[in-house]
C-alpha cells in the first residue's frame, strides 16, 4: 500500500521511456499517451481518495528507514496538487496533437511530457530536501526539451536564458542544502523540521538566513518579484500546449516548495519571514505582474504575465500563515493551475483562429468562433475571481485572512490587481473578439474547435471548484489545519 506514494512518479517515467522507443509511430504514440494519461488520472484519483480516507501515505525509499533513506510523503497537500497536475496533463495530451506539428510530436514531445509530469509529481511528493533538488533537475531538463521543440532562433535564445537562470538557482539550491546539512545534519524534511524546532533561540538567526536563501531558490522558480525575469519570454516562445504545462505546473512547483518548507521547517520567526518579507513581496509580485500583463499587445504574453500576480496571491496566503490564509492559498493554487492551463489552451486556439498573436491586428473573432469567444470570456471571469467561479473562493478566503489581521494595504493591492487583471484580460475580449470581422482568419474551423475541447474540460473543473466548493473546501480546510499543526507530518514520516 505504501508504494502508492511513489506511483505518480514512477508511472509517467515508465510511460516516458515507452513512448521514446516508438517515436515514428505517431498514431500509436498518441493513443498510448492518451490512454495512459487517463489511466494515470484514475489511479491518482484513487490514491487521493485513499489518502483522504486513511491518512498520509509514507514510503521509505528502498526500505531504508527515515531519515537515512529517501521518504516519499503523499500527504493531503501534495496529493491534491498531484491530482490537479494529472487533470491538466490529461487535458494537455488531447490538446497536443492539434497544436503541434507532426514533426514536433515525433521529436519526443510525449517523452518530455511524461518526464515533466514525473518530475513535477516527484517534487510534490518527496519528503527529502536533496531529492527535491533532483526532481527540479528532472523537470528542468524536461522543460528544456519542450522549449526547444520549436527549434527556432527565438526558442534557442530564450531557452538559454531560462536554463542559465534556473541552473543558477539549482546551484544555489545545492549550496543551501549543504548549509542546512551543516547545521542540522540531515536532509529529510521532517527530520530537519524536528531538529530546527529544537535549535536554541540564539542560534535561530542563521537558520532564518538560510531559510531566506532557500526561499530565493524557490522564488526564482516560482517567479516571485523581483526574480521572474526569465519567465515571460521563455513561456511565450514555445507551443501553447507547452506554455500551458509550464504556466500551470512549473512555477507552481516553486510556490509549492515555499509552501512546504515555510509551513514545515522555517516557522520559528514568522514575524519576519511571513509577516514582513512574504507580504511585501506578494504585493510587489501582484502589482508588477499585472503591470506586465497590461504592457503588451501579444495575447500570449498577456496570459503569461498573468501567471505572476497569481503567484503573488498564493504567496500572500503563505505570508498570512493562518487557517484562512493557507486554505485560501491552496484553493487559489489549485484554481490557478487549472484556469491557467485552460487560458493558454484558449489563447493558443485564438492565435490559430486569428492567424496572429498581435492584439492590435485582431478583431471580430467571435463572429466566426463564438464558442471560443465565450469560453475566453468565461475564463476571464474565472481568473478575475468573479463568483461563483473557482477564483472567488480562494480570493475570498485570502482577503478575509488579510483583513482579519488588519492588512489593509495588502487588501487594497489585491483588489486593485484583480481589477487590473480583469482589464488586461477583457482587453483581449473587447479588441480581439469584438469588433468588425477581421481579414485573414483561418478557414480550419475544425482545428480551432478541436483545440477548445480540452479547455472546456478544464473550465468545467473550474466551475465545479467554484459552484461545488462545498464538496472540495472541507478537504482543503483539513489541509490547512494539518499544515499549521506539523506534528502529523513529522510523526508519520519519522515514526511510520
Amino acid at each position: 500500500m505504501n508504494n502508492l506514494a511513489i506511483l505518480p512518479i514512477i508511472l509517467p517515467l515508465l510511460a516516458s521511456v515507452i513512448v521514446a522507443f516508438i517515436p515514428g509511430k505517431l498514431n500509436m504514440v498518441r493513443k498510448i499517451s492518451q490512454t495512459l494519461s487517463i489511466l494515470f488520472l484514475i489511479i491518482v484519483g484513487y490514491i487521493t481518495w485513499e489518502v483522504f480516507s486513511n491518512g498520509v501515505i509514507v514510503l521509505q525509499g528502498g526500505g531504508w528507514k527515515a531519515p537515512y533513506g529517501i521518504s516519499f510523503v503523499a500527504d493531503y497537500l501534495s496529493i491534491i496538487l498531484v491530482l490537479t497536475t494529472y487533470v491538466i496533463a490529461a487535458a494537455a495530451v488531447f490538446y497536443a496533437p492539434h497544436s503541434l506539428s507532426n514533426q514536433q510530436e515525433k521529436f519526443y514531445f510525449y517523452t518530455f511530457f511524461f518526464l515533466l509530469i514525473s518530475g513535477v509529481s516527484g517534487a510534490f511528493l518527496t519528503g527529502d530536501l536533496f531529492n527535491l533538488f533532483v526532481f527540479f533537475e528532472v523537470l528542468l531538463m524536461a522543460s528544456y526539451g519542450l522549449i526547444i521543440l520549436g527549434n527556432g532562433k527565438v526558442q534557442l535564445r530564450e531557452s538559454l536564458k531560462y536554463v542559465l537562470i534556473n541552473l543558477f538557482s539549482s546551484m544555489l539550491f545545492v549550496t543551501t542544502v549543504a548549509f542546512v546539512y551543516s547545521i542540522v545534519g540531515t536532509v529529510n524534511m521532517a527530520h530537519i523540521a524536528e531538529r530546527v524546532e529544537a535549535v536554541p533561540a540564539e542560534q535561530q538567526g542563521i537558520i532564518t538566513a538560510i531559510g531566506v536563501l532557500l526561499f530565493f531558490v524557490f522564488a526564482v522558480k516560482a517567479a516571485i518579484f523581483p526574480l521572474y525575469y526569465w519567465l515571460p519570454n521563455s513561456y511565450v516562445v514555445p507551443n501553447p500546449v507547452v506554455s500551458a504545462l509550464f504556466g500551470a505546473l512549473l512555477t507552481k512547483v516553486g510556490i509549492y516548495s515555499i509552501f512546504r518548507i515555510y509551513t514545515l521547517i522555517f516557522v520559528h520567526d514568522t514575524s519576519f519571514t511571513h509577516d514582513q518579507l512574504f507580504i511585501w513581496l506578494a504585493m510587489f509580485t501582484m502589482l508588477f505582474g499585472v503591470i506586465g500583463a497590461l504592457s503588451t499587445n501579444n495575447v500570449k504574453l498577456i496570459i503569461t504575465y498573468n501567471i505572476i500576480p497569481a503567484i503573488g496571491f498564493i504567496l500572500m496566503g503563505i505570508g498570512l500563515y493562518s487557517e484562512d490564509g493557507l486554505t485560501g492559498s491552496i484553493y487559489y493554487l489549485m484554481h490557478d493551475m487549472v484556469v491557467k492551463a485552460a487560458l493558454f489552451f484558449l489563447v493558443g486556439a485564438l492565435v490559430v483562429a486569428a492567424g496572429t498573436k498581435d492584439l492590435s491586428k485582431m478583431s471580430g473573432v467571435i463572429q466566426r468562433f463564438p464558442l471560443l469567444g465565450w469560453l475566453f470570456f468565461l475564463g476571464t471571469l474565472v481568473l478575475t475571481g468573479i463568483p461563483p467561479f473557482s477564483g472567488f473562493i480562494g480570493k475570498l478566503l485570502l482577503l478575509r485572512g488579510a483583513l482579519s489581521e488588519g492588512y489593509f494595504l495588502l487588501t487594497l493591492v489585491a483588489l486593485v490587481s484583480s481589477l487590473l487583471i480583469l482589464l488586461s484580460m477583457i482587453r483581449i475580449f473587447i479588441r480581439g473578439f469584438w469588433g468588425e470581422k477581421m481579414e485573414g482568419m483561418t478557414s480550419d474551423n475544425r482545428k480551432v474547435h478541436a483545440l477548445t475541447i480540452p479547455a472546456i474540460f478544464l473550465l468545467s473543473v473550474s466551475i465545479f471548484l467554484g459552484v461545488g466548493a462545498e464538496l472540495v473546501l472541507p478537504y482543503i480546510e483539513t489541509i490547512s489545519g494539518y499544515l499549521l499543526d506539523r506534528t502529523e507530518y513529522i510523526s508519520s514520516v519519522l515514526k511510520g
Partner: protein
Amino acid sequence: MVFAVFAPLIFAIIIPFISRFKRKIHTGWLILPVPLLIFIYFLQFVGRDFSTIMQSTNWIPSLDISLDFYLDGLSLLFALLISGIGTLVVLYSIYYLNKEEQLGHFYTYLYIFMSSMLGVVLSDNVFVLYTFWEFTSLSSFLLIGYWHYREKSRYGALKSMLITVFGGFSLLGGIILLTIVTGTTSIQEMVSKSDLIINSEYFLFILVFLLLGAFTKSAQFPFHIWLPDAMEAPTPVSAYLHSATMVKAGIYLMARFSPIFSEVPLFFVLLSIFGLVTLTWASYMAVRQTDLKGILAFSTISQLGMIMAMLGFGTTYGVFAAVFHILNHATFKGSLFMIAGIVDHETGSRDIRKLGGLMTFMPISATLAVFGTFSMAGVPLPFLNGFYSKEKFFESSLHLEGSGTFVEGLITAAPIIAVVGSIFTFVYSMYLFFGTFRGEYQESELPKKPHEAPIMMLVPPAILVLGVILIGLFPNFFNHVLISHSADAVYGDSVTKKIKFWHGWDSRAFQMSLVVISLGVLLYLTKSKWDSIYSFLPGPLSFNRVYDWIVEKVESVSNRITTFYMTGSLRLYMVLILTTIIIITASTLVFTGGMNFDVNDLAPITTAEIIIATIMALGAIGTTIAKNRIAAILILGVVGYGLSILFVMYSAPDLALTQLIVETVTVVLFLLCFYHLPNLESGTKSFTKTGTNLLISTGYGLLMMLIGISAYNSRFAETISTYFMENTYKLGGGHNAVNVILVDFRGIDTLFEIAVLFGAALGIYTMIKLRQDKGAK
C-alpha cells in the same frame, strides 16, 4: 422565490437554443411570459400585511454562504419594478429589434441580468448579494457592447465594466469586513448587531468601501461618467438597466444598510452631499446634451442623486420620499426612454438639433411624452406622480436636523440646492419635449420620413404613463399597499405619511415648486442666451478626461515600466536577481543575529591550500578577462584541476578522480565546439559594467562564505552520516560508503539523475536532428 430568481437564468441558458430553431417567431414572444409570471407572483404580496419571508438553501456552508432569499417591503418594491418593467421592456424590444439581429444573445444577456437583479434585491446573504451584483455589472457590460462592431459601444462597455466592477471589488472588501466584525453573513443579523459595526476599528473602512460600491453602481458624482456612455446599448436596455433597475442597485444597497448606520451622522451627511452634488451637476449637464438619450442619461443621474440625497436626509420624510420616488422615477423615465427609442427608430436620428415638429407625425408618442416630461419636471397637476415626489423632496429638505457647524450649514443649503437642481430638471424636461415634438420640422436633416410607431410598440410606454397617471390620481392607494411597507423596511420603524396634492398656498414646499417653475420657464425661454456658460463650466475639464487619462496611462506606463527592466539582457537579469538575494539575505543575517563568524573552530589552513586556492582564484579571474575562447576555457580548466587536487588533500580520491575526468572531458568538448564558433567579440566593456559585475560577484562570494562559516559554527545536531558509515557494509553489503549511498541508501536520487541524462541526451538529439531536417528542406 428561489424559482422566481433563477427562472430567467434558466431561460437565459436555453434561449440560444430556442432562438436558433425558432426562426419564424421573434424570440421575444416565446420568453415574454417569464417576467410576466414573476410579476404576478410578486403581485400577490402587494397590499397584504405580510411579515417578512425568508427562504434558505444551503450552498457553501463552510464559508457561511447560503442562498437566503428575504422578502420585505423594500425588496418587494424592487422585485415588482424588475419583473414589471422587465415584461414591458421585452414586449417593447420585440418591435425595437428586428429578427435579423442576434436576438439569442440579446435575450440571454437580458435574462441573466433579470435573474441577477432579482438576486441582488432578494438576497440576505452578503456574498450571494455580491455574486448577483457582479453579474448585473457583467450583463450590463455585454448589453452595452451588444453592437460591438461599433467603436463607441466597446468604449462604453469597457468604461461601465471598469467603474462598476471597481465598485464591486470595493463592496467585496466592505462585506468581508462586515462579516469579520459581526461574524455573520446575513444582512438582517448585521442590522441587529449594528453596534458592533459602529464601534469596530474598521468602521471607517467599511463605510468607505460600501459607499464606493453604491456610488459607482448608482452613477453618483464623480463616478457618473459611465452612464452617458452606456447609452450605446439598445434603447430597451437603457430603459431597463440604466434607468429603472440596475442603477438603483446602489440605492437599494444604501437603503438596505441604512438601519445599520442609523446612529452614524457621517453616513447620512455623505449620502446627502454626494446626492445633492450629483443632482445639481447632472441636471445642469443634461441641458447641454444634444442626444435624446444623452439628456435622459444625465437626467437619470440627477434623479439618482436626488434619491440618494433623500435617503441621506435620513428622516422619515426623506426615506418615504426616496422610496416613493424610486417607483415614480421608474415609471416616467422608463416611458421616456421608450419614446426616445421610438423617435430614433422612426426618424433615424436622436439628435435634438435635427428633430423638431414631430407632434404632427407622431401624436401618440408626443402625448405620452407630455406626461413623462411634465411629471419629471414636477409640474403641479394632480395626475402626475412626479409632482408628488418632488413636493416630498422639498418637504424632506426642509425637515433636517443635526448639530455641528458643517451639518447646520448643510441643512441651510439643502433646500437651496434642491431648488437649483430642480430648476435645471425643469429646463431639460421642457427642452426634451419641446425640442423634439414642437418647433420646426426639418425634413432634410432626418434620414427617414417620420411616422407613428406600430401600436404594439406604443403599448409598453403607454402602460408606464398610465402608471404615472394612476399614481398621481390615487397616491394614497399605492402608499397604503406598497410604499409605506417599503419605507418601513428601510427606516426600520413605522413611517406613516399621507400624500396630499394640495397643501395650501403657505406650504413652503409648494412655494419652492412655484419658484422652480417660474425660474425654469424663464431659463428655458432664454436658453440660447446663457448656454455659452458651458464652455466655462465644465469647459474642457471633465471626469471623462480623467478616466480616459487613467486608462490610457495604465497601458503606456505599464509598458514603460515593463520594458525598462524586461530588456532581454541576461546580464541585467542576473544583476537584479543577485542584488536582491545579496541585500535581503545579508540583512537577514545581520538583523536576526545569525552571523556567527568565528575561525577558531575551523581547520587550520596549510600553505599548500593557500597556494592552490590562489591559483584557482587567479584562474577564475583570468577566465573573465581572456580575449579568446580557447584561452578562456583552458584557464577555466585550471580551476577544475585545482579543485581535484583539493579533493585529494581532503582524502576523497574517488571524487578527485571524477572531477579530473569531468574536467578533461568538458575542456575537450568545449574545444571541439569552439572550432565552430566565431571569435569572441573583443568589445570594450564599460567601466561601470565591469565594476558592477565585480561588486556583485564579490558580494555574493562573501555572503556565501559568511553563511557557510556561520552555519558551520552553528552546527547543532549530529549528522546522519554516522549511520551510513556504520551500516554500509552491514546492511548495504558494500565497502565504499559513497557508492552504497549512491546506489542503495539514496538510489532514487541516482535513478532520477539518470532520467535527467536521458532527457538531456534526447534533447540534444532533437536539436541536431530538427536542424538537419530543416537543412534538408
